């Protein structure tokens, strides 16, 4: 299997008036599954639109299979896009919608290709209901089917797991991983860290329009786990507990807030998680609440951007 990059972005920026949506982003993506991770508003969808040629970069270049997806309509033959938006052509059935995509891709037998794509995502091609009658999850799978119907070499999926139940998510993730294993370039965007963890080993992290990090997911996960973290602990013996944790080196700072609340700074969240309960037990302290602060995904991205 060739490991040559299929999708290349070089110094890509996109702005809308004074709003900079994507700023000087460069990366390349080869065969296999690559996840584009970032919070809402990070610029992921704008980046994917530029990769597919749907939007022209304000600066920089994008190449898919060595060609400009904006100028060369034939590149569309190799790209399968599952867009983020929920809207679909309401007068159509699922089969009609996917067959339309097959027809516009010039497939010899659009009806058969549409049926195969729908079966691939677990939907009945013979279903005569129009798309508005479908559940959100079913419509999402129809969108995936129309993106895959022409057997593309590059598959771009913008938040494809939205609206799916856990069983459907597992099936979709297995499907995408299978495509990656076949040597296709699969680029999946998500703002859910755990979702990305299950999707693939390579990730690109975007935050505030910039590429914050890129590489193997395990390395980035370790980086995220090791970042400084602030934890709020409510206990009936805050002074004793803070002293014990500081003495053990589990935390690097402790601050009392009132009679019961303690804010702890640690560089090793896992070690704190292990040491907190035994320390409380040894000091006869009751743990009433343990709340990580700044532990949301935004916090993780902010940390990665600041590094």
């Amino acid at each position, binding site marked *: 299997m060739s490991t040559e990059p299929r999708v290349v972005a070089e110094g890509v920026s996109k702005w809308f008036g004074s709003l900079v949506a994507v700023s000087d982003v460069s990366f390349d993506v080869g065969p296999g599954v690559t996840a584009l991770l970032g919070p809402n508003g990070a610029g992921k969808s704008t980046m994917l639109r530029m990769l597919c040629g749907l939007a022209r970069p304000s600066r920089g270049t994008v190449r898919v299979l060595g060609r400009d997806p904006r100028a060369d309509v034939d590149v569309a033959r190799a790209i399968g896009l599952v*867009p983020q938006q929920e809207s679909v052509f309401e007068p159509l059935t699922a089969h009609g919608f996917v067959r339309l*995509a097959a027809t516009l*891709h010039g497939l010899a037998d659009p009806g058969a290709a549409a049926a195969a794509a729908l079966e691939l995502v677990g939907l009945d091609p013979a279903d005569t209901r129009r798309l508005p009658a479908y559940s959100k999850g079913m419509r999402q799978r129809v969108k995936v089917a129309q993106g895959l119907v022409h057997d593309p070499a590059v598959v771009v999926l913008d938040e494809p797991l939205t609206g799916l139940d856990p069983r459907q998510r597992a099936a979709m993730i297995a499907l995408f991983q299978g495509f990656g294993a076949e040597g296709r370039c699969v680029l999946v965007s998500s703002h859910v860290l755990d979702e990305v963890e299950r999707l693939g080993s390579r990730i690109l992290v975007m935050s505030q329009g910039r590429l914050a990090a890129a590489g193997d997911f395990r390395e980035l996960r370790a980086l995220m786990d090791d970042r400084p973290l602030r934890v709020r602990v409510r206990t009936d013996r805050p002074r004793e507990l803070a002293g014990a944790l500081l003495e053990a080196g589990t935390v690097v700072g402790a601050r009392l807030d009132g009679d019961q609340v303690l804010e702890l700074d640690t560089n090793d969240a896992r070690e704190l998680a292990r040491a907190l309960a035994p320390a409380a037990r040894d000091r006869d302290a009751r743990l009433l609440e343990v709340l990580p602060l700044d532990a949301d995904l935004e916090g993780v991205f902010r940390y990665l951007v600041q590094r």
Partner: protein
Amino acid sequence: MSALDVSAETRPTATASLGALYRLLLRTQVTVPRLLGIAALGALSVLLGVFARWDDDPVQAAADVAASYGLGIVVPLAALWLGTAAIGDLVEDRLLVYLWLKPVARWHLPAAAVLATVTLVVPLAALPLAASALAAGAGEAASAVLLAASLAACAYAGLFVAAGLWFRRAVWWGLAFVLLWENGGARASDGTARFTVTSWARSLLSTIDGVDVPLDGRSAAAALVVLPAVAVGGWLAATVRYRRADVD
């Protein structure tokens, strides 16, 4: 399949892609409110034709109904309602992405939109105008009315499909265009009338025997060229916009 060699892949034939897009746009354009609204305008023209039957000169009266109400109101409004929606609705509903990222020449979608609009406007607006002439007892005027209304429908379809791509809230811009320019401008002076679709369409009514239509230097023969040319111009403007647009 290995799709790495993109050049080895074939595009759909123009017939296949135009046909698929045309059928799709027909289905997305047709909504009950639109059909009822346009049908009501058409039905009113037939009713006006019935009243024209009692006029001293029913042929002239039928031509007047076609010129003022039909070509000034019914045809442009029907084309406006359907034409701006043809691609404009896809833009607003963020559906264009499903059509843009396909190996299809960019001119196909605007062409399909113009064709679909004409397909709906002619039976919904032009045919009732011809029926209006028949109802007035001016059967000899019906074919000229149908021709004028159909060519006007083509011209307006081109313009309003383009407007749907170029402007947000294209219906309102188009409504102002129809009322202020196509009706007000057409009556303001000979110079402005020369640049209105409705005046060129009205000139085709001069081919009806015994009907007095102010031509102001225009000719029915020239209208046969000008009106399709406006349609082509609108289609080209829509294609230019579609090629350059960022698709959401």
